[in-house]
């Protein structure tokens, strides 16, 4: 009796759609990537209360060494010498938009004296609201 030939199972995985999946992932990353106006490396303080920062807000970055960088939110941040330059910068930004929000991105270990001078400069420039950039405070942080 002649038995029908058994079909050999294919030993390959079809990879024709791999390129499609890869391009979909690329498109996802390209759409979700956001470009930071300030790339200063700081350790942010942690807070429980965190509100969304408006896009295009102006940035004032202060690293642990006391170096200050500012950005109006439209271009990459640039270094400034001191808090008086922050005042001049803020005056210029407020002149174009009196309701412009400012973000203070300061290292958590910086002396409060430096932060105080920047906040004072922003107050004198008639900035109405600032956002203190922070990371999320977790349960472990509260317990510790």
């Amino acid at each position: 009796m002649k038995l029908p030939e058994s079909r050999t199972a294919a030993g390959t995985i079809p990879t024709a759609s791999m390129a499609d999946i890869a391009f979909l992932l690329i498109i996802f990353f390209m759409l979700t990537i956001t470009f930071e106006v300030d790339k200063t490396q700081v350790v942010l303080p942690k807070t429980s209360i965190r509100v969304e920062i408006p896009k295009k807000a102006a940035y004032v970055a202060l690293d642990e060494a006391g170096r200050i960088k500012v950005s109006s939110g439209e271009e990459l941040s640039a270094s400034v010498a001191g808090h008086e330059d922050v005042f001049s910068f803020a005056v210029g930004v407020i002149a174009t938009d009196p309701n412009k929000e400012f973000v203070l991105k300061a290292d958590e270990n910086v002396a409060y004296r430096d932060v105080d001078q920047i906040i004072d400069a922003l107050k004198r420039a008639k900035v109405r609201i600032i956002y203190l950039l922070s990371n999320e405070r977790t349960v472990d942080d509260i317990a510790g």
Partner: protein
Amino acid sequence: MKIDREPVDDEIPTSSMADIAFLLIIYFMVTTTFAATRGLDFALPEEDDSPPVIEKEDSVLIEIQASGELVVDQNPMPLSEVLTYLQPKLEVNPKKPVIIRPDPQSPYRHMVLVLDELRQAPEKGFKEEIRISIPTQREIESFWY
């Protein structure tokens, strides 16, 4: 005369397309950084050349020492007890301002921690938000005690 010519392959080889695509994915995955986009909002009061003088009895003063320890109305106090201390005072006068005065040498994070704790007041039994004031050193020297 018959000339045999090899047929020219008119297809573009796409076998390396997936490799290039995955290289691009790896590039984006490595270079993508997750930016912090949230923070604590802090409304700045308008500059006033002659602000109202606030008497000591009309406010609560939280001083942050250089070491990070808190002194509330001249009493050392841990951060976890501050809201408990404030609750009876603010029940009598919800508009009583709470003034935060960090030592200039204290790390910035301590001011943020205290501000964050006070901002959580409505979630912890307070009827309304606490009126918080953080005078700058210039204002302290010009107007405050």
